[in-house]
């Protein structure tokens, strides 16, 4: 299994303060059950589950800024929430200072909540429009019974407002969220998050709703708060650029799993996973000397209720190998993409070789029996597929799909395509870098099967 990341971030400054483990997740899973009816209509199978978080191990140390980075649907927000007990884990554990918080009920969690706070993405939505700033920011004090009287309450609120730069505080105490700008609201939200003296703050896209000229200000404020209050951050974002600046450690997520995890500098300087590489290459930069790469990963992040076999990134990966988990629906995607490029007549001629292309959509099939279309034999289908394979091996870049096809033969009037058995890539440490990566291409020599 996994080795715990022994992260000694190479960065200077912030990294020096990184200390003892604060939160540890082991085998963490959060699966959201789907109700039967609707789902089985599409899949033909029994009700499934969305694997929002699917087997994650990580260690967050005191004073660290951990970035959870991924596209929407990668499970980064769910993971962030689960780390502080806001979402229940379905398996595995999260321990905070040695105490397993997944086993705690609401009553047991309550005293911990003031130590584990959250900042949400949308400052407009996370403040009650009918609560003035005095009430909203001080609310945690009332909930946790932290103040003896109104004078102390007022003093604590004023102090929190000063810390987040809403000065002079008197000017803001009586205001309502509607009177504040986006940046001021996010400052108020931060004031509310720090007022109960937390140790860990999970910030879910805290700057993505703000204007560019304000983003840097809020990030700077978060850095100041971290320094003054000795905070630890989990920074959830889809924005690699701000994560690069802000985080000590970064975990790149894809479909509920961490695919790359290590010191930020190292990950950005030498990305190991093809997904990380693709993400970095795709960021539009205001630099006229740089252009987007011509080869971008195809498609979008798949449905987490029906994750691809093996490595979840393989259908989009330009360098996938045999063991990455090729299956029947990848063949369908391949054919459909080919037909999109062809003239309509040629496409429909090729399509008529198959009785029903839709039937290839079922997930989790390591071999598939294709019924030939009317007036065609299985041999026709095989010949066509072999032709495609040959064409692909001459093309550049090569189509990785064909690496995964082991045999193609005719059987009982059908063309049978068998795929290489899938293997799940495991997060493994790359020596001398402190980076863990889950990719077959980066596994230690000896354990990879040939391409």
């Amino acid at each position: 299994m996994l080795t715990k990341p022994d992260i000694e971030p190479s960065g200077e400054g912030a990294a020096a303060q990184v200390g003892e483990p604060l939160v540890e997740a082991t085998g963490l899973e959060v699966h959201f059950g789907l109700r039967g009816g609707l789902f089985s209509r599409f899949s033909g199978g029994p009700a499934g589950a969305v694997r929002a978080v699917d087997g994650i191990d990580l260690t967050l140390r005191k004073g660290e800024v951990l970035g959870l980075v991924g596209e929407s649907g990668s499970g980064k927000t769910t993971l962030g929430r689960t780390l502080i007990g806001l979402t229940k884990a379905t398996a595995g554990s999260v321990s905070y200072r040695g105490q397993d918080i997944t086993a705690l009920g609401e009553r047991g969690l309550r005293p911990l909540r003031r130590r584990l706070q959250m900042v949400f993405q949308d400052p407009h939505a996370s403040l009650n429009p009918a609560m003035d700033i005095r009430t909203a920011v001080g609310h945690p004090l009332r909930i946790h019974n932290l103040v003896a009287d109104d004078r102390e309450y007022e003093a604590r609120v004023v102090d929190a407002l000063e810390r987040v730069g809403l000065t002079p505080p008197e000017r803001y105490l009586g205001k309502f969220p509607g009177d504040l700008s986006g940046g001021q609201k996010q400052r108020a939200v931060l004031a509310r998050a720090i007022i109960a003296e937390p140790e860990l703050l999970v910030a879910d896209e805290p700057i993505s709703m703000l204007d560019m000229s304000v983003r840097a200000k809020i990030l700077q404020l978060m850095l100041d708060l971290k320094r003054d209050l000795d905070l630890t951050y989990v920074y959830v974002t889809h924005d690699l650029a701000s994560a690069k600046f802000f985080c000590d450690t970064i975990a790149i997520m894809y479909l509920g799993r961490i695919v790359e995890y290590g010191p930020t500098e190292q990950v950005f300087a030498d990305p190991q996973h093809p997904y990380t590489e693709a993400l970095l290459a795709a960021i539009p930069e205001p630099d006229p000397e740089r252009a987007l790469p011509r080869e971008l990963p195809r498609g979008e992040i798949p449905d987490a209720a029906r994750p691809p076999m093996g490595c979840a990134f393989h259908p989009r990966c330009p360098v996938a190998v045999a063991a990455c988990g090729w299956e029947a629906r990848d063949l369908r995607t391949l054919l459909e993409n080919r037909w999109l490029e062809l003239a309509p007549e040629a496409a429909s001629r090729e399509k008529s070789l198959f009785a029903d292309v839709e039937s290839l959509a079922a997930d989790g099939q390591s071999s598939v029996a294709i019924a030939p279309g009317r007036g065609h034999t299985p041999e026709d289908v095989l010949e066509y597929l072999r032709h495609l394979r040959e064409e692909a091996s001459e093309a550049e870049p090569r189509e990785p799909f064909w690496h995964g096809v082991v045999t193609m033969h005719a059987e009982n009037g059908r063309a049978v395509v068998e795929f290489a058995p899938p293997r799940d890539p495991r997060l493994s440490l790359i020596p001398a870098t402190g980076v863990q990566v889950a990719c077959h291409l980066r596994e230690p020599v000896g354990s990879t099967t040939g391409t």
Partner: protein
Amino acid sequence: MTEPVLSVRDLRVWYGTDRGPVRAVDGVTFDVRPGETLGLVGESGCGKSTLGRGVLGLTPAAAAVDGEVVLRSTGGAGRNLVGLPAKEIQRLRGPELGLIFQEPMTRLNPLMRISQHFEEALRSHEKGLSKQEIRTRALESLRGMGIPESRYRSYPHEFSGGMRQRIMIALALVLRPAFIVADEPTTALDVLVEAQIIKILADLRKNFDTSLVLITHNLGIVAEACDRVAVMYAGHIVEQGDAREVFANPQHPYTRELLRSTISLSTTGLHYIPGSPPDLVEPPQGCRFHPRCPVAMRGCATVEPPEVVLPTGVVSACWQQAIEAEPSLVDELGPGGREPLAAVEEISVADEA
């Protein structure tokens, strides 16, 4: 030089409010040439979306529009869209003008199949097409965006966000407009999908010679996808010119500060512009950026800067460059007009955006 498809001259779009008119677009001038992509950037509230709408004649009835928006169709003479009856403009939408909206999730009707969206668009803009022709045109357009024929009769919810945005683009393209406004077409999308859409837009101008105005707050997208860029601040275009030139050597202090405060992969320190964009009901006198400008002079607070064409072809509206280009202009700033303005340090969080 080829004649521009679209010439906007001194366009103003004002909205009425209780406190007086909001000058969302206040005297804007630019051209778009055939096959060219113009990026329109600025922060929220700078008037960039209003400008996009104003060009297409899509401003709400309560808005007052003044100025000139001249559209030149292929071969034909130009006609001014401002003041044209709604019916006339409606006839131009489709064959001449197209719009790609922000947030494809909310712009497709969830109760209509993709096929019905295309039928509606083609029927209302090109009367007399047969059912078969509509189908052929729609499928051709969808195929260009990578949507397979088998999805033609699906509903919007059956598609992912990126596919929905590609369907929106296909819907605009099916009418073969010569000129398209794309309003934040990638804002709700993930990085990889965003890059895919930018490529599609780049291919568009290569393959169809379509002119595009791309409205965005993301400077990176402009750098990747646009030939020219216009930077907006408080209802004005403060700098416009060749995108590479503007990004390599930003001239206007606002462009410079905006580029510096953008967090990119090469960011090593945080920088930000103090204060917030002005209230467009009572915009500041003189240069609208002067209260936040690090190099503002006394005169900037009283006299509006002229637009100066620099040797690189970049047009900038800033006194610093104006005086450099034409030293005699210094008289307009009045006595002591070149003294630095010291107000900038006074801005606190109170005025923050």
